């Protein structure tokens, strides 16, 4: 027994420290990087927001507080029209995408695996796999063919282009919600002679609602934010808000853009917060 090999001093020291609050989860320096990451993510946006309240024309030298640029932005006709178009497209695309995604989610969850299920997943997620610019040019070419053949123009093209990439985003939270839902309630409803439609209307839908609302939030944000696909697909005169902003930024930066961007940021943050509220797990 006396022959036992003594551990090297480094190990002894380690063993000693472990006795007093050695945290196996701790890794040195990681906290600093995390805080740096947080600051780095928010500091540039904070600068943008602060200078939207600057009285001066300069976007980087502070003079005094003013809401001037907001007033200017809100009364700018170009911005107004762009905002209205963006909202129209986002509302229409979100409505279609959410309905379609809800239906698809009902057919792809809580069932035994069936033939084609993997293919369905792959197709629904396809818009997430292909780079945006590729989808954009492919859609442009396709819509050009249709326009040539039918002569139909209008905002419908933009709406459908948005619907395609909104579907997977609406589908995700709805599917997640359905998967966490027990089939028992629906079976009880069926046992009590509810028709399938009534069961859906009175049992499934109310339980599913938070997932659907989360899907609405996500696809609305995604549609509002889109630049690349709108840029290539939109017809003449169809300027969405991001297209208006990118057009202005190429010409030169004015604090008016800070003001518009700040409003935009606030809307996105609000929608994402709502998404969090809808998907929060109950304790």
């Amino acid at each position, binding site marked *: 027994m006396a022959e036992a090999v003594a551990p090297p001093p480094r190990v002894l020291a380690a063993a000693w420290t472990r006795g007093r609050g050695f945290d196996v989860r701790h890794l040195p320096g990681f906290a600093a990087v995390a805080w740096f990451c947080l600051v780095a993510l928010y500091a540039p946006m904070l600068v*943008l927001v602060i200078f939207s309240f600057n009285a001066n024309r*300069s976007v980087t030298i502070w003079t005094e507080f003013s809401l001037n640029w907001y007033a200017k932005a809100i009364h700018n006709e170009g911005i107004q029209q762009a905002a209205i178009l963006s909202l129209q497209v986002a509302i229409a695309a979100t409505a279609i995408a959410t309905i379609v995604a809800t*239906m698809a989610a*009902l057919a792809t969850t809580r069932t035994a695996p069936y033939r084609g299920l993997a293919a369905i997943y792959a197709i629904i997620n396809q818009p997430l796999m292909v780079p945006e610019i590729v989808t954009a040019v492919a859609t442009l070419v396709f819509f*050009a063919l249709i326009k040539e053949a039918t002569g139909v123009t209008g905002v419908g093209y933009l709406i459908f282009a948005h619907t395609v990439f909104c579907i997977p985003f609406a589908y995700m939270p709805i599917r997640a919600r359905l998967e966490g839902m027990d089939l028992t309630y629906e079976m009880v409803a069926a046992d009590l002679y509810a028709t399938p439609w009534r069961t859906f209307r009175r049992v499934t839908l109310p339980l599913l609602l938070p997932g659907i609302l989360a899907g609405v939030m996500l696809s609305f944000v995604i549609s509002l934010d889109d630049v*690349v696909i709108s840029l290539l697909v939109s017809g003449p005169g169809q300027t969405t808000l991001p297209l208006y902003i990118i057009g202005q930024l190429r010409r030169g930066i004015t604090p008016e853009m800070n003001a518009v961007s700040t409003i935009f940021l606030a809307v996105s943050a609000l929608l994402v917060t709502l998404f969090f509220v809808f998907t929060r797990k109950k304790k």
Partner: protein
Amino acid sequence: MTSPTAMPANVSASDPAAEAVLRAAKRRETWRRWFLVSPALIIIGGIGILPLSIILLYSLLEPAEYAGVVWNFSVEAWINLLFERDMFDETLTLADANIAIFTRSIVQAGLTTISALIIGFPTAYFIATRPERQRNAWLFLITIPFWTNLLIRTFAIMLLVRDQGVINNVLIWMGVIDKPIEMLFTNFAVALGLIYVYLPFMVLPLYASMEKLDFRIVEAGYDLYATRFAVLRRVIVPLVKPGIVAGCILVFIPSIGAYVTPRLLGGGKHMMLGNLIANQFGTSRNWPLGSAMALMLMALVMIALVFYVRNATAKEPGHG
């Protein structure tokens, strides 16, 4: 809408009447299923997938003078990806401009992925080891930029790196420099912008796999006298590898095809693939070449995805 899906199949295999009822129920179920998924499949298939085959066709045609195509078969577009044909003697030379843009795109996307991993890994780990309340707050704070408009976040970086931007102003005020450093419209600005924009895409998938990390295994590593670094390298990194791969894919794919960030921060001289492709459908009016480039980009992405799928399935058998 909910018919009993999980019906016992062998209830009474001998009873033909019961069997018929079961078969009818099964058929109804199949119909219901396809009725429900078909709108999604039709929209995505029709507007998302069908156009991809159209650009494959277009890449094999000749460009028309003012946008569009002439219906003559030609592989010129594919040759033009890498080569230029001399106007007079028809000899082929390497298209340096295109190749420079391809290389830049791959380098920028690679740099972005690595930098995002270096910052994102410790961040995700730190978040995953917080108590639950703090963890939710951190996640919320990382998710907001994740969903925030990419254009606006690029604009925010523009405000920092301009000649009269925040960085230059601060450096001049501190007396470090007396003339602004030119940062906007450089490769550096594009790299900075890409990292800033796509960093949350790295943190969230990393977090998702670190959240599941079993710290008893980490502790076992320490019990076996491993140093912190050895535990990190030999225990933690292999365990969260699916998250690392997922994060890298989520950053690499959008950054290699990025359009907005190089457009605003790089200007005309530091274009990336996304801008080059868009140009073929705008000012350059060469749809076949643009189609070929788009397909090449997609091929690059597919290679990355195959790598991802193989990695994910090797690490987590029976999952995904």
